[in-house]
């Protein structure tokens, strides 16, 4: 193979590698951000609904108490109403507790995104550093340097991928499965 062909092959390999690995990491970043957005949106919606429901239940409970304070005779109906509202508040607080756990999941997803972006920046930085050492006159040296850059790019990309296990696959803020062994 002539030097020109080898040079062309290495450049082609580098561009292809850069495109493949860059696309792969950025696609993962995109997926994580979309998932984060879903979780945040759903959490806010659920927390808002719980907040309003708790407010309504407390208002109804207060009305029953005010009625008693104004001298009304405590009836089984009023007692039942207060008890029912208490139970309703507990149910909505539980829903809010589930919704509030969004921070744990989204922070893991954001952490993974940050690690991937930082890793990709390091990969691109490595390519920049490698390219600065390329000789402008010697084809053999250029081929050798491009070959090294390609290897570093592949190694760093694989290393980054293996360090980024995806621990959060949830796309909804519903409570998860329970399994006793």
């Amino acid at each position, binding site marked *: 193979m002539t030097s020109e062909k080898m040079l062309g092959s290495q450049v082609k390999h580098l561009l292809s590698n850069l495109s493949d690995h860059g696309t792969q990491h950025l696609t993962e970043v995109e997926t994580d951000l979309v998932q984060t957005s879903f979780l945040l949106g759903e959490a806010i919606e659920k927390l808002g609904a719980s907040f309003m429901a708790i407010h309504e239940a407390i208002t109804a409970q207060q009305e029953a108490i005010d009625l008693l304070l104004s001298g009304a005779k405590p009836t089984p109906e009023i007692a039942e109403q207060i008890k029912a509202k208490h139970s309703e508040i507990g149910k909505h*607080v*539980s829903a809010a*507790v*589930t*919704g*509030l*756990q*969004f*921070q*744990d*999941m989204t*922070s*893991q997803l954001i952490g993974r995104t940050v690690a991937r972006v930082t890793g990709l920046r390091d990969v691109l930085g490595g390519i920049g550093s490698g390219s600065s050492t390329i000789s402008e006159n010697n084809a053999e040296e250029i081929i050798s340097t491009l070959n090294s850059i390609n290897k570093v790019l592949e190694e760093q990309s694989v290393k980054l991928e293996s360090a980024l296990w995806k*621990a*959060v*696959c*949830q796309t909804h*803020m*519903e*409570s*998860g*499965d*329970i*399994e*006793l*062994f």
Partner: protein
Amino acid sequence: MAKTILAVDDSGSLRQMVVFSLRAAGYQVTEAVDGQDGLDKAKGQVFDLVLTDQNMPRMDGLTLIRSLRGLPTYQKVPILMLTTESSDEMKNKGRAAGANGWLVKPFDPQRLTEVVRKVIG
């Protein structure tokens, strides 16, 4: 006397939710910020139940479980995982390490309390 639970999680907000839910059900809950902190606290006191996350700095949940199972005082103490991890692969690793159950986040306080009650009363 209230049953004691060690809640291990690196997320402060998640620990807060666990403590809120279990204290309301009458349990005495101690918090640990990661696996290493959990192990240190478990060595100082034998809890009735350990509830741990998986992905944490310094020491993860599976390593914590293996370390606890290596202690004579923790060979029979129930240990539950409470984690975002939901794959069968991870559940099998948990079971092999010595976990007694696997709860996927987010948790519902009532269901968490029911499970804890079922396990330690």
